């Protein structure tokens, strides 16, 4: 689709925000607190921070909540009555302030929840999400989007991508139908495209590796000491998976309250020792090294083999939060 370029004044951003809220949309945006910056539901423009590299958590919970009802049930002596959770109304959500890596993550995420078995719960939510991303002007040593076919100004996945220009105003690239709809609803705020180029306003993210080369190398790397070596300090928690914008492994859990209850989908992680444990006590992934290998192979080999898109967008969140300082970039570049 043809990308339409506009200029949006710094002062107009707040107006756009207010219009979105006024139109009944729920807006999630980066909000700063002492220890973290999270995508949170915001009511006022002033609650949003623009002083962040990436948020601590990923935006995925908007489409893949950490605990999500699949259905509810009511049981009587005679029978069981099931109420489908996918028929419940889903709000229109604007994700404001996603980074290009965050937006790109929705592509593999959507792949996972589709294929032969389209997941209507996910698709309902995804269909109602508008991604209003902001290009990156800064990066750090954990960022590696350019190694996984992304970039600090990548438009893939976003509906509109804003890039701050030297004037303080923004270039708005309108990428999708959804984006065009928002522009149409806010016509007065979008002015003729600026002359200033986008590129000089973007962060310079170092390219450490080439995804295609890594994918080729991983084909024959199942048995390799690198997995144990690089995961030796791994504590076996799920923080890497839970802050990852692409990770979508889940558990299914029932909750019962008397004769009623729900079946829930809950986030799960391949880093947990119980993830693959058989009832017999046998565990096909016995060690943390085997689990780390699964994480890397899934992202850099299995997913791109299956759907052409890697399961990693190079946001670096997993490495930033890891309590044992296990660094995904370090593992991949050591291959």
């Amino acid at each position, binding site marked *: 689709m043809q990308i339409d370029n506009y200029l949006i004044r710094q002062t107009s951003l707040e107006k756009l925000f207010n219009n979105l809220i006024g139109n009944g949309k729920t807006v999630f945006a980066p909000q700063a607190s002492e220890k973290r910056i999270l995508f949170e539901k915001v009511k006022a423009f002033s609650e949003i921070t623009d002083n962040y590299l990436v948020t601590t958590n990923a935006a995925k919970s908007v489409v893949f909540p950490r605990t999500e009802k*699949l*259905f509810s*049930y009511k*049981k009587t002596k005679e*029978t*069981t009555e*099931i109420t*489908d*959770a*996918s028929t419940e109304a889903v709000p229109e959500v604007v994700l404001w302030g996603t980074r290009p890596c965050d937006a790109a993550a929705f592509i593999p995420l959507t792949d*996972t*929840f589709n*294929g*032969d*078995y*389209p*997941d*209507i*719960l996910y698709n309902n939510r995804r269909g109602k999400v508008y991604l209003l991303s902001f290009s990156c002007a800064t990066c750090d040593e954990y960022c590696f989007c350019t190694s996984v076919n992304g970039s600090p100004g990548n438009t893939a996945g976003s509906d509109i991508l804003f890039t701050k220009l030297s004037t303080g105003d923004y270039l708005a690239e309108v990428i999708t139908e959804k984006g065009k709809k928002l522009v149409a609803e806010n016509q007065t705020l979008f002015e003729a495209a600026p002359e200033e180029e986008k590129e000089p306003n973007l962060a310079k993210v170092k390219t450490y590796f080439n995804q295609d080369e890594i994918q080729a190398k991983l084909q024959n790397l*199942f*048995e390799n000491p690198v997995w144990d070596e690089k995961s030796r300090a791994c504590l076996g928690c799920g923080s890497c998976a839970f802050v990852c914008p692409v990770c*979508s*492994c*889940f*558990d*299914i*859990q*029932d*909750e*019962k309250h008397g004769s009623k*209850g729900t*079946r829930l*989908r809950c986030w*799960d992680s*391949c880093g947990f020792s119980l*993830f*693959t*444990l*058989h*009832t*017999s006590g*046998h565990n*096909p*992934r016995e060690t943390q090294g*085997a689990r780390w290998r*699964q994480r890397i*192979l*899934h992202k850099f*080999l*299995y997913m791109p*083999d*299956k759907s052409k898109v890697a399961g990693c967008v190079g946001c670096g969140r997993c490495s930033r939060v890891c309590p044992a300082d296990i660094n995904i970039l370090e593992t991949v570049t050591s291959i």
Partner: protein
Amino acid sequence: MNNPNIYIPYLMRIEKITQEAPGVKTFRLKFENKQEAEEFEFKAGQFGEYSIVGVGESTFCIASSPTRKGYIECTFRQVGRVTSALASAEEGDVIGFRGPYGNTFPIDEWKGKNLVFIAGGIALPPMRCVIWNALDLRENFEDITIVYGARTVADLVYKHELEEWGNRPDIKLVTTVDPGGETPDWKGEIGFVPSVLEKVAPSAENTIAIVCGPPIMIKFTFPVLEKLGFADHNIYTTLENRMKCGFGKCGRCNVGEKYVCIDGPVFSGEELKLLPAEY
């Protein structure tokens, strides 16, 4: 499934419960909804998610043959939370079922061949489906041999069917129990499945071998089959890994790049050799 929400189970009424062995039961399940019953189709080798709402889901194969219409059967051992809840269900109770999932045994390709079924313990159920499937189309196949072993005589499942198969002239049935697991009147073999198989020594000529059992049994049975002259592509097995969704999303059952839930559970010996030992 008819429901667009792929997590919603069919409601199935338990028509009949058979106690197979200590802690092992077979349920015969009928669809609550007539239309669902009519539309439901599956093939040998496929599995499903059986559930008690409020407790959870558990994965097992469909143990009845697709040639027997109107119901499905499952056989399970009471081990964890869900199987314990299932075990306490009674005839007439309603349980949940999602499926069928996974690939199937290529039974149509086996026309005109000999079949050797090799199973251990609670792994007879996935095999029972394909055995009955073959027996109901008996004229399509040449010799049928079944080698089945369990830890003890009491642990042998489908005892009535074993008797029936044993009495049929068109089946060669060999049952065995582990040393020490026999009873005074035990007339079958004593020994582990791989060594009994070696003794039975079915001809590999124009023969398909189907192996189901715990990973350790599979590990020791494959070399015996090789010794008997079976080519990898004439051996089939089913893998069992921990699963939640059954359709390739929850992310835990993969063996290397292959998901047991969608690429399996049926794998040929040839395919298995290409997979890492992650099962």
